[in-house]
C-alpha cells in the first residue's frame, strides 16, 4: 500500500479540477459571446450609419434670367410657381457647368452629365429659394446644393471607381471630376442637419431623405402614450397593490397583466387595426392611433414596475399615517405614492423607451405610408394628432425596403438617432433611480 501525499493531486482530482476549469471557461466564453454580439451589432450600425450625418454639397452659382423665370416681370408668386423644377434643372445644369469651366478642370462630360451630378432635389431647393425671395430673379444666386447619392457615396467610400463603371447612374469620369472639384474646394462635406429635419424623400434621392416627419410623429405618439398610460397605470397599480381584496377577481386581473406584458407586440397592432381603425374609424397612420396602440402595449409594462415601487415602501409608513388618523386613501396619496414616485417614474421612462422603439404594431395601422408633410398637432379636420405621420423605427423599416443602396446608410443613421434618444431616456431613468432611490 502506497501512501500518497495530499499535496500531489491524483488522477481523479486532476480530472475534477480540469472539469472545474472547463466549466468556468464555458461561463466566461458565454459572457464574451454576449458582449461580442453587442459590440458587433453596434459597430455594424455605427459603421454604416455614421456617414448619414455628413453630406456632400457643391457651391453653385445659378443664373436666374428673368425671361425664363418670370416673363411678365411683375414678380407675381402665383405666376412664378408655374415654372416647374424641370425649368430650374436647365438653369442648374448651366450654372454648374459654368462653375466647372471657371475652375479650369478639364472634363469630357456633357452639360447634362455635369448637371446630373447634382441631386434631383437641388432643383426643388433652388425653386423654393426663388419663390421665397422673388427679388433674386434677374440676378444670380449662390447656394450650397446637394450632390447626388452616388457622388456622396464616393466621398463616403460606398461607391468606388470600379463599381461606378458598372453603374448606369454614374461613371468613373463623374467621380474623377467630383474629386477634382473637391480638391478645388467647390464640393465640400458638412454636418447633415437636414437629415434630422427634412421629411422623407422619394426612391431616387436618398441624399435628401431625412427624419423630420418621423421624429415629430414619434414625439406625438410619446405624448399620447404618456398622457394615457401614466395615469391609468398609476391608478391601476395603486388599486391592485393597496386596496384590492385577495379574491378570484383580483387574481384574474393580476394574471392578466403579466400575460399582457408578454403578448407579442404585433397582436396589439391587430387590435388597433380592428378597434381604432375599423370600428372607431379614427384616421389611419395617425399618431393618435399609433399612440393609443402603444399605450395599450405599454400599460402592463408600466404597471409591473409601478407595483414593485409601491411594494417597496415599508408598511411602517402606512401604519404611521393610519396611526395619526389618516384614512387609507390619505395614507396612500399623501405618503406612499410620493415615496414610490421615483421608482414609478423610472418604470415609466423605461416603458416609454420600449414604446419608442416598437415597430411591428405600427406597420399594421398604416404608418408605413410615405409622408412628406409635417403633421400638425391639431387640425379641425383631422382632430388631435390625426394627421398622417410616420415614426422613427417605421422609417427605418421603410428605408430598408428601398432599392437604392444609399438608403441603407440612411436606415442605419436613423437607428443611431433612435439609439441616442433611448440612451438619453435610460440615462435619465438611471439618474433618477440613483438620486432618489431609498434603501429602507
Amino acid at each position, binding site marked *: 500500500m502506497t501512501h500518497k501525499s495530499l499535496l500531489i493531486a491524483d488522477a481523479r482530482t486532476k480530472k475534477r479540477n480540469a472539469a472545474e476549469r472547463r466549466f468556468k471557461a464555458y461561463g466566461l466564453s458565454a459572457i464574451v459571446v454576449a*458582449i461580442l454580439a*453587442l459590440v458587433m*451589432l453596434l459597430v455594424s*450600425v455605427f459603421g454604416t450609419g455614421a456617414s448619414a450625418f455628413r453630406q456632400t454639397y457643391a457651391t453653385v452659382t445659378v443664373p436666374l434670367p428673368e425671361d425664363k423665370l418670370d416673363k411678365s416681370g411683375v414678380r407675381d408668386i402665383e405666376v412664378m410657381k408655374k415654372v416647374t423644377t424641370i425649368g430650374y434643372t436647365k438653369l442648374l445644369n448651366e450654372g454648374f457647368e459654368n462653375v466647372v469651366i471657371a475652375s479650369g478642370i478639364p472634363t469630357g462630360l456633357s452639360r447634362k452629365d455635369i448637371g446630373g451630378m447634382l441631386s434631383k432635389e437641388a432643383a426643388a431647393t433652388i425653386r423654393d429659394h426663388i419663390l421665397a425671395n422673388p427679388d433674386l430673379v434677374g440676378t444670380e444666386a449662390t447656394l450650397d446644393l446637394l450632390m447626388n447619392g452616388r457622388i456622396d457615396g464616393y466621398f463616403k467610400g460606398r461607391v468606388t471607381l470600379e463599381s461606378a463603371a458598372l453603374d448606369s447612374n454614374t461613371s468613373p469620369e463623374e467621380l474623377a471630376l467630383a474629386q477634382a472639384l473637391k480638391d478645388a474646394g467647390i464640393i465640400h462635406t458638412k454636418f447633415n442637419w437636414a437629415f434630422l429635419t427634412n421629411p422623407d424623400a422619394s426612391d431616387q434621392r436618398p441624399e435628401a431623405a431625412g427624419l423630420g416627419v418621423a421624429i415629430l410623429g414619434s414625439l406625438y405618439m410619446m405624448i399620447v402614450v404618456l398622457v394615457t398610460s401614466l395615469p391609468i397605470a398609476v*391608478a391601476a397599480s395603486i388599486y391592485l397593490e393597496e386596496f384590492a381584496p385577495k379574491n378570484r377577481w383580483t387574481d384574474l386581473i393580476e394574471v392578466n397583466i*403579466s400575460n399582457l406584458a408578454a403578448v407579442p407586440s404585433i397582436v396589439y397592432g391587430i387590435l388597433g387595426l380592428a378597434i381604432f381603425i375599423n370600428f372607431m374609424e379614427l384616421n389611419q397612420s395617425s399618431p393618435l392611433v399609433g399612440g393609443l396602440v402603444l399605450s395599450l402595449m405599454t400599460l402592463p409594462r408600466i404597471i409591473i414596475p409601478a407595483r414593485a415601487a409601491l411594494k417597496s415602501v415599508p408598511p411602517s409608513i402606512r401604519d404611521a399615517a393610519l396611526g395619526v388618523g389618516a384614512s387609507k386613501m390619505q395614507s396612500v396619496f399623501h405618503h406612499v405614492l410620493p415615496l414610490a414616485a421615483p421608482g414609478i417614474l423610472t418604470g415609466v421612462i423605461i416603458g416609454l423607451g420600449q414604446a419608442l422603439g416598437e415597430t*411591428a404594431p405600427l406597420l399594421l395601422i398604416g404608418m408605413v405610408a410615405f409622408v412628406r408633410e409635417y403633421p400638425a398637432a391639431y387640425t379641425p379636420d383631422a382632430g388631435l394628432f390625426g394627421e398622417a405621420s410616420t415614426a422613427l423605427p417605421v422609417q*427605418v423599416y421603410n428605408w430598408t425596403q428601398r432599392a437604392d443602396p444609399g438608403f441603407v446608410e440612411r436606415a442605419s443613421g436613423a437607428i443611431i438617432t433612435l439609439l441616442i434618444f*433611448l440612451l438619453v431616456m435610460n440615462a435619465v431613468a438611471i439618474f433618477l433611480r440613483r438620486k432618489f432611490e431609498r434603501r429602507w
Partner: protein
Amino acid sequence: MYATSLAQFTKDTRHMLPMYVPLLATLLLAVAGYYFAAKRAAASAGGDIRKLAALPSQYGLFTALSVIVPTLAALIVGLGFGGLSGALPLVLLSVAGLGFLVSLYKVSPAFRARTHAETWIKIILIAASVIAILTTVGIVFSMLFETRNFFSQYDWRAFFFSTEWSPNFRGNSALGIIPLLWGTLYISLIALTFAVPVGLFAAIYLSEYASRRTRSFAKPAIEILAGIPTIVYGLFALITVGPFLRDYFAQPMGFGDSASSVMTAGLVMGIMLIPFVSSLSDDIINAVPQAMRDGSLGLGATKSETIRQVVIPAALPGIVGAILLAASRAIGETMIVVLGAGAAARMSLNPFEAMTTVTVKIVSQLTGDTDFASPETLVAFALGLTLFVITLGLNVFALYIVRKYREQYE
C-alpha cells in the same frame, strides 16, 4: 352597424357641437364646483369649520369628482356603444351639470365629504385596473370576430392542415398555416439553441464566479442588449449577418445563395434572447438558498459540481419557465424575421434557405392595399389568433411554473 353609426356620429358632431365643448365645460364645472362647495361648506358651518364633518377642501374635492367621474363614465359608455349618436355631447353636459347640482345640494355640516370623495377615487382606481381585462377582451374579440368571417369564406381544415401557402389577390388562394408554423418553429429552435446555453452559462458565471468588477461591467453590457429595439436587430440581420452567412457559409458549402435565411433570423433572434434568458435565470439561481451550496461544498464537491448537481436541479423549474418565456418571445417576434428570414413559404430542412413565419405573413397580408373583406386579408386575423393562443399558452404555463417555484424557497 356600430362602425357606421359611430362614424356618422363623429362626423355629425363636427358640425353640431364639437366634442371638446362638453369636455371643457366639465372641466370648468369641476373647478367651479370645487370653489363653490368649499365656500358653501364654510358658510354652512357659520365660519367655524370645526362644526364640519370634513375640511372645506374635501367638500370641494367631492363636488369636483362628482362632476368628472360620471361624465367620464358616460363618455366611455357613449364611445363604446355608439348608440347615443349625435346626442352624446348634450348627454355629457347634462350628466356633468347634474353631478354639479346634486353634489352642491348635498353640502351640509353633517355630510361626510371625505368618505364620499374617497369612494369616487376608489371607483377611478378600480376602473383603471379593469382596463387590463378590457384589453384582453378586446384582443380576443377583435380577432375572434374577423376570424369567424375568415372561416365563413375559407375552410378551416384547409387553413390548419394544408401545407401550401400561396395567397393570390384575384382569389383562389391556398392559405395553409403549416409552412408558416414550420418556419416560425424552425427559427425559434435555432434562436433558442443559441440563446439558452449562452444565456444560462452567462447567468451562472455572473452569479457564481464573476468578481464584483467583472459583474459590474458585464451585467449592464448584457442588459443593453435587452434595451435595443428589435428593428435594430432586424437591420443587423439584413445588412451584416445575412450577407456574412451567405458569403462564408451558405455559398462555399453549397447550401444556396440567399442572404435572408432561417439561420440569419435565428442567430440574430438568439442574440436578442440572451439577456432575456440570462436575467431571468440569474434571478432564479440567486433565489436558491446559500445553505444548499454550502452543504455541497462542505462535502467536498467542487464549485462546478455544486452548480451542476445542486444549484441547477434546484433551479430547474424556474429555468424551464424562463426558456418557455423566451420561446414565446421568439415565436411572436416580428421585425427580425421580417427583415432577416425572407418571404417564401417553404418547408425545408436547409437552414440557409429563406422561409417565412406567421408574423411576417400577418404584416404582409395587412400592409398591402387590399380589400378588407377578402379571405387574403382576413387570414391575418386567423394567423394572429393562432399566434395569440400559442404564446398565451406558453406564457400561462411558464408563469405558473415560475411562480410555483418561487414560493418554494420564500
